[in-house]
């Protein structure tokens, strides 16, 4: 089969690889009909996530048709079923899964021993990501093996298109979880840093959850335009001071909740000198992540507010004003997404016509064109916000 394979920094290739096979009773094989390039795939593209190996198949946003089912998954899935695959692999039986904490499943990471040495404890297995999270081959491919498939799936009706349901596997529940973590009240202002695909979903989620005001912060006009269409007030940090504008919009109180949909690769610019400092340290391997957004959020957030972090961080972040956070009594909530905790309700929102996540797709391409789409998405050329690939 053909698959997009990681070969090193900025080097993704459309390679010919052997087909996946059932390795465990609870596995299923999916013929991928649609998959997407995620913002966190760019962290792999930039080789900022440790423990990637040349030859790894990438991609963790995919859906398709079940073509083979292991005996242990046969009760839950049948050949021909149409499913979205959540990016977090979960067993559904361990203590964390029973609590609904699927992204920290205690059994699905097959490299748990290695990750425990680094993280203290293991988290769930993830598709198309680092070997610390299991090194499972990803879904930017014609076929993908789904471990624990009897639980790791979202069945979707034929009445909805791939484009409407594909994002149930990652960016939609990720944005949703970020907003839910904010405990939004009808009087709240929620500020969202980063208007990429997860930021866009977080904005829609905050609106659907009834925030009085949603504020979107970015520098790209097309992304801010899309955010405004979704009901947000846009702040372009190239044109105006984020701190002053937030003060103005909240009567000097600051946002009740701040969502970091940027993560470890915040924009580097001389207007924010700390970002240049962070990039230099990151390049010299003295720091993993660029913490500009975290610093700004801690400074502007209303005392007793919430900082919600769906953006990906990989390791050490420098110069975080933790004293400010402590004294302001801020609550930090974060984590990889417990995808299946949210998908039933989100699917219902889509079916009821309240939300159509396909709005975020700006580019559709074949799998062969996938390698070219990575730099296009990274460079934000052609106003690219979200790429969907059709294997």
């Amino acid at each position: 089969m053909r698959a997009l394979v990681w070969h090193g920094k900025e080097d993704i290739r459309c390679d010919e690889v052997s087909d996946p096979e059932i390795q465990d009773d609870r596995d299923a094989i999916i013929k991928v009909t649609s998959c997407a390039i995620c913002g966190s795939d760019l962290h792999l593209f930039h080789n900022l996530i440790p423990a990637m190996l040349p030859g790894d198949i990438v991609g963790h946003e995919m859906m398709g048709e079940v073509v083979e089912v292991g005996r242990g998954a046969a009760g839950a899935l049948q050949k021909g079923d149409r499913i979205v695959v959540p990016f977090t692999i979960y067993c559904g039986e361990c203590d964390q899964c029973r609590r609904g904490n699927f992204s920290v499943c205690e059994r699905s990471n097959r490299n748990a021993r290695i990750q425990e040495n680094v993280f203290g404890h293991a988290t769930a297995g993830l598709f198309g990501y680092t070997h610390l999270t299991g090194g499972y081959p990803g879904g930017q491919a014609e076929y993908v093996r789904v471990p624990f498939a009897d639980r790791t799936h979202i069945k979707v009706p034929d009445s909805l298109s791939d484009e409407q349901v594909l994002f149930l596997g990652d960016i939609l529940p990720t944005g949703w979880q970020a907003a839910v973590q904010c405990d939004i009240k009808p009087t709240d202002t929620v500020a969202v840093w980063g208007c990429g695909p997860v930021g866009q979903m977080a904005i829609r989620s905050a609106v659907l959850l009834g925030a009085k005001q949603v504020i979107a912060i970015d520098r790209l006009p097309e992304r801010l335009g899309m955010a405004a269409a979704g009901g947000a007030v846009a702040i372009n940090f190239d044109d105006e001071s984020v701190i002053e504008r937030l003060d103005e919009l909240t009567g000097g109180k600051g946002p009740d909740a701040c969502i970091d949909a940027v993560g470890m690769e915040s924009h580097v610019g001389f207007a924010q000198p700390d970002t240049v400092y962070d990039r230099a340290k990151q390049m010299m391997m003295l720091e993993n992540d660029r913490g500009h957004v975290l610093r700004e959020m801690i400074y502007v957030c209303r005392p007793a507010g919430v900082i919600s972090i769906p953006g990906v961080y990989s390791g050490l972040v420098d110069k975080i004003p933790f004293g400010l956070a402590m004294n302001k009594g801020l609550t930090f909530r974060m984590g990889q997404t417990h995808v299946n905790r949210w998908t039933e309700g989100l699917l219902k929102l889509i079916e009821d016509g309240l939300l159509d996540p396909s709005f975020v797709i700006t580019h559709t391409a074949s799998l062969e064109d996938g390698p070219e789409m990575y730099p296009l998405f990274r460079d934000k050329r052609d106003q690219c916000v979200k790429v969907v690939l059709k294997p």
Partner: protein
Amino acid sequence: MTFLSQFARSERDPRLLKSGSGSLGLPDRLAKGLGWFSLALGAAELFAPGRITRPLGLQGKETIVRAYGMREIASGLLSLSIDKKAGLWSRVAGDVVDLVTLFNAMRPGARRNENLTVAMVVVLGVTLLDLLSSTAVTVAHRRPAGSFKRYADRSGYPQGVEDARGAARGRGMAGAG
């Protein structure tokens, strides 16, 4: 490396059979080559400056050559990073410094002028390559200026934003965060 990494995978995971087209364009590959060249040259200047000063008749200037070596290594690391544009333009600036240094070392009638001329021709050639590469990388990854799509029609709410506002609150979906 890809072959060796197969040993770290599960035996039954898909294996690479044939490599295909990739995301690294010609400008990116050229930048990578120049980055490695910078590291090699920088290491030579840093650890064996005498091998460079002697043929050029620049004995006594080893400290300067070592400093240039450190500059080359910094440029090389930058050219190999995702900020390769900055790395390549820093190489161009370094080339100019090298050319000025070589030109200043020339003395009327001196025997070393022949070697200095050869060195200047080589540096000029590298400068052209650096300029070409810097320009190509800049153009390849540039976000063209001009009119932008505003995506003003992409609300994501089929029934409109006002109907969507707070619509999930009554559905019991806001808790369990």
